[in-house]
């Protein structure tokens, strides 16, 4: 590959036919920092998605109060509808079997008609699904039309690093707003600021169960214990949930196996108690101190575990909200974090097995700049390993889809079609099914069936594409000075321009970057 082709395909999102090949490839990348537009106009907000959730919860409570409590079977089915159980959605299966959450009646244990509560849950899921679909469409169209494809790719990278998975009703509508609000505005800022935006966003607080975590000795837990002792108050005892604390250390900052223990995870979870979301408590929000505009980050002192903490050998004596903030600051600047982030960036841009020299260079830039992301990206661009002429990265379904639509010259693509395409190709947007996000190496994507699907999709696109496209000329535009002899020959011998275009879209040149 030439430098121009590398800039367009490996760092960018694939060339568009109206792109002039960059003269100075490195400069073309860096110059994008000044032109990047973080705002996506018309994007749904977390506030709107959270308000819809809060309205639903209120409706449900009103129904309950009116009926004096639903029958247990109904309550269970309503809870199942709310959780959007993975198996029924197909989300529990291999990624390719997943279907996005849709407004369907939950297959219940019996065939009773839906209660009002269940109907509210179904309506809520439909609402969340609309937010989700709209957001996926906006993400795709931003990727197709952007004048700053390198920075756009970085947005995708970070959203996957800090993955939430839109599998249940509580998160499905928030996944788009999460990327728009917590990732996009910070992609050219400091790592620390992105980390704070991410860990305080309602999508993350709810996806990893932080919103409901309660300190065992917090004021709220003590009230609950006293009531229980008097024989009042039933239901669950409030308590600690260590899910977010663990994933922050393992996935978001330090990386797994980097010198923290189970005890550190639990201590961090205690420090995090009180970090929650306003307006989504199921009653008792006032008592817990979680009143406010639904979806807003709130620190609720009544949920916070009192006392000083010791994490990774360091003491954290801060009061309240500042305690977890101090831990996050420590994690954001930790050398293990610099190493972890550098490794993932180099894996994304250079090779599945990241070359040590490039990792060291990016890691040093992280540490020296205090996590200044543009400095880190510059170190990456300056790494000779990133300009290796053989493409080493196998495109993910998202990368292949975006580059395909760009290659066809599209600036817009249908929203439901985008959702469906990614579904069929095995990478439903914002639904990796795990907080680790989608894997970034070839074995996860280069499967026999996956290739067959791309061939099927390419043929469909090519058949519907403008017949005026000359695939020979298009290949030269997409891979300036780089199209391989085998690909050029296969296209030249095709029985029709449409078939030539399909071959271009599945060629070895196009499958990798």
């Amino acid at each position, binding site marked *: 590959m030439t430098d121009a082709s590398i800039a367009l395909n490996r760092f960018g999102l694939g060339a568009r036919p109206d792109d002039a090949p960059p003269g100075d490839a490195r400069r073309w990348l860096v110059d994008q920092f000044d032109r990047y537009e973080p705002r996506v106009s018309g994007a749904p907000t977390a506030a709107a998605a959270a308000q819809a959730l809060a309205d639903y919860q209120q409706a449900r409570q009103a129904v309950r109060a009116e009926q004096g409590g639903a029958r247990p079977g109904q309550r269970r089915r309503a809870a199942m509808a709310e959780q959007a159980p993975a*198996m029924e959605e197909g989300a529990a*299966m291999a990624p390719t079997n997943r279907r996005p959450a849709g407004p369907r009646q939950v297959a219940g244990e019996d065939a009773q008609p839906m209660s009002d509560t269940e109907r509210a849950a179904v309506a809520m899921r439909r609402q969340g699904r609309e937010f989700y679909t709209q957001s996926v469409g906006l993400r795709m169209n931003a990727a197709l039309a952007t004048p700053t494809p390198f920075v756009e790719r970085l947005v995708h990278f970070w959203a996957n690093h800090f993955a939430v998975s839109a599998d249940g009703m509580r998160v499905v509508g928030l996944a788009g707003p999460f990327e728009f609000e917590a990732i996009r505005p910070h992609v050219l800022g400091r790592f620390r600021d992105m980390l704070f935006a991410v860990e305080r966003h309602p999508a993350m607080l709810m996806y990893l169960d932080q919103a*409901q975590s309660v300190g065992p000795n917090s004021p709220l837990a003590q009230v609950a214990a006293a009531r229980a002792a008097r024989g009042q108050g039933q239901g669950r005892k409030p308590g600690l949930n260590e899910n977010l604390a663990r994933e922050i250390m393992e996935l978001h900052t330090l990386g797994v196996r980097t010198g923290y223990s189970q005890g550190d995870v639990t201590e961090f979870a205690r420090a995090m108690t009180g970090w929650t979301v306003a307006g989504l408590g199921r009653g008792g929000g006032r008592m817990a101190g979680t009143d406010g505009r639904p979806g807003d980050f709130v620190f609720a002192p009544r949920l916070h575990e009192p006392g000083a903490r010791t994490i990774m050998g360091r003491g954290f004596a801060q009061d309240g909200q500042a305690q977890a903030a101090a831990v996050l600051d420590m994690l954001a600047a930790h050398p293990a974090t610099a190493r972890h982030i550098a490794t993932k960036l180099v894996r994304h841009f250079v090779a599945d097995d990241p070359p040590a020299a490039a990792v060291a260079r990016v890691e040093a830039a992280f540490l020296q700049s205090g996590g200044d992301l543009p400095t880190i990206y510059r170190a990456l661009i300056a790494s000779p390993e990133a300009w290796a002429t053989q493409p080493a990265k196998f495109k993910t379904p998202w990368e292949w889809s975006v580059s395909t639509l760009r290659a066809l010259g599209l600036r817009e693509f249908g929203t439901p079609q985008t959702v469906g395409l990614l579904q069929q190709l095995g990478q439903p947007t914002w639904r990796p099914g795990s907080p680790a996000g989608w894997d970034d190496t*070839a074995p996860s994507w280069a499967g026999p069936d996956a290739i067959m699907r791309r061939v099927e999709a390419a043929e469909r696109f090519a058949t519907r594409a403008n017949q005026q496209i000359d695939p020979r000329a298009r290949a030269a535009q997409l891979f300036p000075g780089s199209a391989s002899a085998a690909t050029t020959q296969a296209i030249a011998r095709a029985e029709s321009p449409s078939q030539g275009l399909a071959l271009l879209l599945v060629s070895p040149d196009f499958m990798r970057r």
Partner: protein
Amino acid sequence: MFTRRTFVSTGTLAAIGAAFAPRIAFAAAPTEKRFVFIIQRGAADGLHTLAPVGDPAYAAARGALAQDFASAAKLDAMFALHPALANTAALYKGGEALFAHAVASPYRDRSHFDGQNVLESGGKDAYQIKDGWLNRLLSVLPQEQAKGIAVAATVPMALRGKVEVASYAPSALPDASDDLLARVTQLYAGDAQLHALWEQANATRALTGDLAADNGRNAAATGALAARLLAPADGARIAMIETGGWDTHSGQSGRLAAQLRGLDAMIGAIKTGLGPLWKDTMVLVATEFGRTVAVNGTGGTDHGTASAAMLLGGGVKGGRVIADWPGLAPANLYEARDLKPTASLDGVIAGATAAHFGVDPARMTAALFPAAGPVRAVEGLTRSV
């Protein structure tokens, strides 16, 4: 991608195997044995699948989650199966389901991704071994039988390795034209990676015919699909199905019931789909680790250690739960929070596959778990033929 060490040990094994192995291991006539590995990604709660209701500490330890077993029929004096597992319970009654409890892989931390890597690679530590035990199982089998398939778009870790395997998942995309397929074959001829993948894709396509029409939208359809991939005389003999959604940090009661109902439907569909071949089939269900004994503050459980595994099939010596039960009293827990592992999941896997395929247990153990140290294959898991 072999480390020198694993390369040497598998190479040595192959040489020894050829010279001294019992005849049965390389018997000329391939048997009809089928093996399905269903992985439960996300650390399925064994205590909420197969509940030790007879343990005096159980009810207190599990709190609200124990309610789900209030009316469950007991399998024996100690254990009850989750009520959502109706097909599985029927298999147990018919002597075709065996459960192993308080089992764990050698992994002792609580990261899903490391835990799954240990479970799938068969190593002792994460990322120690670069290929999967299911792939190495293929290399132990006679060549006629050594066909594996992942019921997924890509090949999961356990099936990756030097024996080529296929993958298949239903697609709603229209089939590409034969002419285009032929040209893609030419186009990929000079590209080693794409060429190999393409060969596999075409071979699988020829086998599956119109399966795409099923569209495998739920667990039962996936089970039925797996059965159809395994049933033909020249089909796959080993299949792996990935299931996720087992990471129940909150609202566990409802979520796990739905998960288990799906798993049960999948198992039922495999049995139905295989028909008479069920007698020669073994299904293993396992997860990377278990969950905390105590319920957390959000009605769920957090990452733990030991869990339960299932063996199902016509040849399984079932109707039993095997467990060296450690007890749920606080003093008996692992790190004061988890079900203590008292048996090796590796040992169960090695013993089950050895008995099922008629391979010497020591040889199977060495092939599947070359780095795990003293793993002893659990014997007597199948009915003697």
